[in-house]
């Protein structure tokens, strides 16, 4: 059997020695679909995602991307691994002064040589892929607009397109809808679900909204205080589990 796209074993992260934020996470993500990670703020969901592409350095444990341990990589090997992992951010993290197309091409910076990036001489294939993705996210005429001229929903669509430009093997989405209004949030998640399914990319999605998580994910992982307290399909998630994840019950 081939190695799963993502396999995490015994992951521990301590920002301050002795006070772990993640206390030994074990998680394997299959080849398809959305795995939603839910849990209260400050429980380490963002840290978990950022450990995977090493924006945050894990303290202990293994993170394997198709069998390759990411935690030991340095320099060029780390960059080559990062380009296989797309990421969508809560606040879009676009380069506001650059055009939409330039932002998309940021997703190719791990692939093209520096001089090509500097002179904007990308391979024609990348440019075509960029236009195709703009079409797919519903912004076909926006290639030359500056990113700071877009609305929140449009920016997140560009954020998704940028991540897919990498042709990633795994996509991490860190609260991608928390800065959006409820309607736009659903539209953006629908887009994310559809495009990643078409591309066959598994997604790890951090999300606050339990209803949206149940609606779009095929698997829910509930975290509380740095450990996984629930792992199963959305149908299995019950009030008792939510109580264990978030604590209390007055809000239910």
């Amino acid at each position, binding site marked *: 059997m081939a190695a799963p796209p993502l396999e995490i074993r015994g992951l521990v992260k301590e920002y301050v020695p002795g006070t772990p934020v993640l206390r030994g996470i074990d998680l394997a993500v299959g080849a398809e679909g959305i795995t939603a990670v839910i849990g209260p703020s400050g429980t380490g969901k963002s840290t978990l995602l950022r450990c995977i592409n090493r924006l945050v350095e894990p303290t202990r444990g293994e993170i394997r991307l198709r069998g390759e341990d990411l935690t030991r990589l340095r320099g060029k090997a780390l960059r080559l691994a990062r380009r296989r992992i797309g990421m969508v951010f809560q606040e879009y993290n*676009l*380069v506001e002064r650059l055009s939409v197309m330039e932002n998309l091409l940021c997703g190719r910076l791990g692939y093209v040589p520096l001089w090509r990036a500097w002179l904007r001489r990308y391979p024609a294939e990348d440019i075509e892929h960029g236009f195709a993705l703009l079409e797919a996210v519903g912004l076909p005429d926006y290639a030359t607009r500056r990113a700071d001229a877009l609305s929140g929903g449009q920016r997140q669509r560009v954020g998704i397109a940028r991540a897919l430009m990498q042709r990633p093997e795994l996509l991490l989405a860190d609260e991608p809808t928390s800065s959006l209004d409820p309607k736009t949030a659903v539209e953006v998640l629908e887009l994310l679900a559809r495009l990643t399914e078409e591309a066959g990319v598994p997604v790890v999605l951090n999300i606050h909204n339990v209803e949206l998580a149940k609606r779009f994910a095929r698997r829910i992982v509930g975290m509380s205080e740095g450990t996984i307290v629930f792992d199963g399909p959305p149908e299995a998630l019950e009030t008792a589990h939510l109580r264990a994840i978030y604590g209390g019950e007055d809000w239910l």
Partner: protein
Amino acid sequence: MSASGHAAAAPRRPFAPSWGFRLGMLALVAYTAYAVPQLGLSWERLAVGFGEAGRFLARMVPPNFTRWELLVEGLVESLQIAVLASAIGIALSLPLGVLAARNLAPWWINAPVRGVIAICRSLHYVIVAILFVKAIGFGALAGVAALVVASVGFIAKLFAEALEEISMKPVEAVRAAGAGTMAVLIYAVLPQVASRFVGFCLYQLDSNLRNSTLVGIVGAGGIGGTLFAAFKRFDYDFVSAILIAIIAMIFLAELVSGRVRAALR
């Protein structure tokens, strides 16, 4: 009941009185009154001074443009010093500013680079010009070198400060896509500061134009040398011609850089 309580209380003050400021102003006035007689400033001295100024001004008109070749030669040299110094200074400031930014370079790089920039800023450019004249001899080279130092001190420092204020979010995203250090710099960092950097450069070019007219006085090339010679020979009509030419050049430069700045916005 509460209404009567309010009426009994002292009237509320909407603004806090600043006694520190008031005392400071008082001290300033008192020190000024003390310092004026100390320096021998009096109405009589002022009257003598104004008389001299009148005679001096009278000898400045009409301005004498008969030696215009000398004037143009000096002006062109000043202009060249300013442009050359700005170009070299900008080229040096770009990497130095990046290396001095505390959010981009590790402390063992940014600390020494900040030190170099601080040294560039600490000496007045005329003093630097004198040092270079002594070190590498009279002429435009010393002037260019002095203004390069001044340009680096200004542009690199402000550029580093602008870099320290950038949003790290795009940087994070571009790094997460697997981009190398230089690609992150080109795509996520520089676009955020490019327009400010151009603004600093234009401002410094203005400053260099002004300053290049002065370095000649200490023998570092340009119109300043001509001006100083005219002063020494009491050719005040030629002095006024030189001053008018300098003012015209600076005005022209302000006009051009203003246009460029407006176009960039």
